[in-house]
């Protein structure tokens, strides 16, 4: 076995998430066209690229929202593509959405408690036969939820319907709800989109703090300054392919990336591109239609 | 057997007329209108009134029933659908409201005309063989098919050759885009109701020309109509035409093997089978263009 092969297999062992040659065709159009990437434990990996690059579709493929046309997804060494879409969250892989999707007519607390894994009270048999076990577990879940509500400063809205929250509070609730699943890896889809500068700093603080506690992140973000600040590594996509990968500064100055954002011969400094909800909505609809 | 197919084509062309209107309304307004069948009944009773009380020939009532159906649809939009759109009502709330409209409309007709089965005053025409085929059809049967074909051709020309038709297609494809590119949405909605309600009203007259009817006719027609638009792909008026003929023929042919009472159930079963295989209909959804 060559030294190089050994090194890469060691890297693969450390990789929490491995995507290999992922392809997704919509009709004849390749939204994701042979993407491979690794996310290692404890990393924050930024995923950038202009609109239509296939970033959100890639998220949907990784979380099994959409079936792959070809390729493979491994999480914690286990191949997961082709498995049911509720599996990733159970293994510790959870995502948030570009346009927040809270359970509007459930309270904030209910939103959080719902997401806790392994609840005996989610079975009718246990409800009937072991109500005390259900109650005891429920108490623990509530404590964990209250802890997260304190952490995210959402205690005041604990018993309000999530549909009444402000945009910023929804972002926090979505992140807290994802944490309730006890994830190893969080996929954040444009956490900073449509967020005011103060809240941006706050969200950034949460991401960095959670990383200190051992969380791993893969983050789609259009705010390039933000992504450069938090990422250990950046992957740039355009037209369904990975066009550049490496340390943030290197990717930022990669001519291929500059071209992708500004077109060939554009100015050197890549400007943040307006994320614009319509593309995201179209993808969501695709997800619905295929789900 | 061929006789059943022929009867099926007559019934299917009536379904095609009524179903294409319902599908158009869905395409533009995203409203699943359970009152559509009762708008068909309304058209038949307008014609009945003109025919019996004023002695008008049934064929003359056809355009008048179209106009009456259109007026009713526009009025209902002003009373019910426009306020609901303004308040951002959800799809389920709109469906429930359409059930309310259906109940109110049907029973208003019962109040005015009674629930007894009735028929137009028109000469009974002999069924004559069609060439050397073992098929008997009356002149009325042929006229119903021709009238349905004319109505559908009119719809096709409206959608493809007129500015309002193009605006309808734009709106059904991408409401947000149509909005920003200056499509007069209110005008499109008004025309959608004129066409949808008009076709319903005219379809009611055609139905009444082929058989006796009562105030429940629209309710019983609603299942095959929905079956037709689902088979053809909801929101696709052309699919609804195909679906209408398919369901019409399937229902009549079933009479060869099943008691006639199950005729309406056959359309439903075809619909379920199609849904299980093609959850979005045979011709797919959202293809006004």
């Amino acid at each position, binding site marked *: 076995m060559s030294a190089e092969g050994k090194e890469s297999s060691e890297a693969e062992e450390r990789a929490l998430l491995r995507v290999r040659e992922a392809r997704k065709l919509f009709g004849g159009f390749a939204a994701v066209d042979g993407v491979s990437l690794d996310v290692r434990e404890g990393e924050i990996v930024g995923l950038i690229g202009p609109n239509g690059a296939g970033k959100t579709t890639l998220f949907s493929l990784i979380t099994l929202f959409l079936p792959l046309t070809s390729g493979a997804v491994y999480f914690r060494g286990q191949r997961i593509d082709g498995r049911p879409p509720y599996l990733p969250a159970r293994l510790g892989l959870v995502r948030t959405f570009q346009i927040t999707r809270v359970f509007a007519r459930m309270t904030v607390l209910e939103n959080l408690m719902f997401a806790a894994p392994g609840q005996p009270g989610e079975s009718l048999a246990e409800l009937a036969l072991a109500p005390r076990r259900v109650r005891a577990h429920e108490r623990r879940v509530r404590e964990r939820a209250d802890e997260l509500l304190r952490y995210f400063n959402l205690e005041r809205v604990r018993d309000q319907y999530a549909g009444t929250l402000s945009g910023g509070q929804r972002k926090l609730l979505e992140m807290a709800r*994802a944490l309730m699943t006890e994830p190893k890896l969080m996929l954040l889809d444009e956490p900073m989109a449509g967020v005011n500068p103060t809240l941006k700093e706050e969200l950034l603080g949460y991401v960095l703090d959670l990383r200190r506690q051992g969380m791993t992140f893969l983050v789609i973000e259009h705010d390039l300054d933000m992504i450069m600040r938090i990422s250990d590594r950046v992957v740039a996509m355009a037209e369904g392919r990975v066009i550049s990968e490496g340390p943030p500064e290197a990717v930022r100055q990669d001519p291929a990336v500059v071209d992708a954002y500004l077109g060939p011969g554009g100015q050197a400094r890549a400007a943040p591109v307006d994320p614009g909800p319509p593309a995201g909505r179209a993808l969501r609809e695709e997800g619905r239609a295929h789900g | 057997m061929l006789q059943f197919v022929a009867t099926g084509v007559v019934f299917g062309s009536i379904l095609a007329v009524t179903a294409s209107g319902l599908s158009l309304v869905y395409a533009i307004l995203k409203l699943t209108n*359970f009152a559509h069948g009762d708008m068909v009944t309304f058209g038949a009773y307008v014609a009945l009134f003109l025919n019996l009380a004023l002695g008008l020939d049934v064929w003359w009532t056809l355009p008048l029933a179209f106009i009456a159906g259109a007026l009713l649809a526009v009025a209902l939009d002003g009373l019910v659908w426009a306020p609901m759109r303004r308040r951002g009502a959800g799809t389920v709330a709109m469906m429930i409201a359409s059930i309310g409209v259906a109940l109110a409309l049907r029973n208003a007709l019962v109040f005015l005309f*009674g629930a007894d089965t009735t028929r137009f005053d028109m000469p009974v025409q002999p069924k004559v063989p069609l060439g050397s085929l073992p098929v008997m059809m009356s002149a009325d049967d042929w006229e119903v098919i021709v009238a349905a074909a004319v109505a559908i051709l009119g719809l096709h020309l409206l959608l493809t050759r007129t500015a309002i038709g193009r605006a309808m297609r734009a709106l059904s494809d991408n409401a947000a885009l149509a909005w920003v590119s200056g499509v007069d949405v209110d005008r499109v909605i008004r025309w959608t109701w004129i066409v949808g309600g008009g076709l319903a009203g005219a379809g009611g007259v055609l139905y009444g020309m082929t058989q006796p009817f009562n105030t429940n006719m629209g309710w019983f027609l609603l299942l095959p109509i929905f079956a037709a638009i689902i088979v053809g792909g909801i929101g696709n008026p052309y699919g609804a035409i195909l679906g209408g003929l398919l369901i019409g023929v399937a229902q009549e042919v079933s009479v060869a093997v099943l008691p006639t009472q199950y005729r*309406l*159930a056959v359309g439903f079963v075809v619909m379920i089978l199609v849904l299980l295989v093609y959850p979005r209909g045979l011709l797919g959804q959202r293809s006004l263009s």
Partner: protein
Amino acid sequence: MSGLLAGLVAYLASFLTNATLYVLFVVGLNLQYGTTGLVNFGHVAFLAIGAYTAVLLGVHGVPILFATAAGVAVSAVFGVLLAFPALRLRDDYLAIVTIGFAEVLRTVVNNVQFTGGPQGIYGYAVPLRDLGLGYQAWQWLFLALVVALTALAFALTEYVVRSPYGRVLKAIREDQEVAVALGKNIVGYKVASFALGAGVAGLAGALLAYYYGAINPHNFEAIVTFEAWIIMVLGGTGRNWGAVLGALIYFGLYSATARYAMSGVGAIAADRLAALRIVAIGVLLVVLMIYRPQGILGRKEDLGLER
């Protein structure tokens, strides 16, 4: 005077029984739609299945208790069958499929031999009737039975809805994709919700059959489903107490106009007035949907939160 009073008392018993049976029926619908968001426009089908199953088994010598339980079970099984399209279909398709199911079922019941066809079935055994009580006393006793069973169904569904299980059902109603993304396998929940709701409706159907003493296909027309929807949305969807309030208001209005619908007013015949009453029901439904879709007990915040 005492005759009038006796009449009133008897009327009160029938009013309360009807209203309570509808509460039970709506408790099932509320679990399906109010809690889980599954649009069931054919709920009356489960009422019919429960009624016919219980009565037919009773006629063939099965003890009433078992016949009633079978009515619940068979309804629930049909609920499972109908849930399968529900797993894949959008709201509007599901509404059409369920309405179609109910209409087809009624057509079948109307045309096969063993259900008695259009004449239906009558003269079957009824619970508590063989105790030697007079009809009035039986009415009140039977009302007590209906109230007890309704309270039981009410309490059990309340318990489920407030449990972690119910939390999953509500999440499915709000956004089922997100529920899956957070690790829940929702298939079983949707099927169970539909089946449980159908079972409750089956119980209501069996009790209804016992109360009427005769059933025929006319008792199970589509209007019954929509009466249940009115009761549910009047009180506020997703709330069992809303069903109670809705049923009381609906049957209150219904009774207040019953005299005219039965005897007619002046020259206007009774059947036309009955039609006018349904016009009023339709208008009520429309007005509710425009101005207060969240119902009487619904929170103001519910408005606009529905997708």
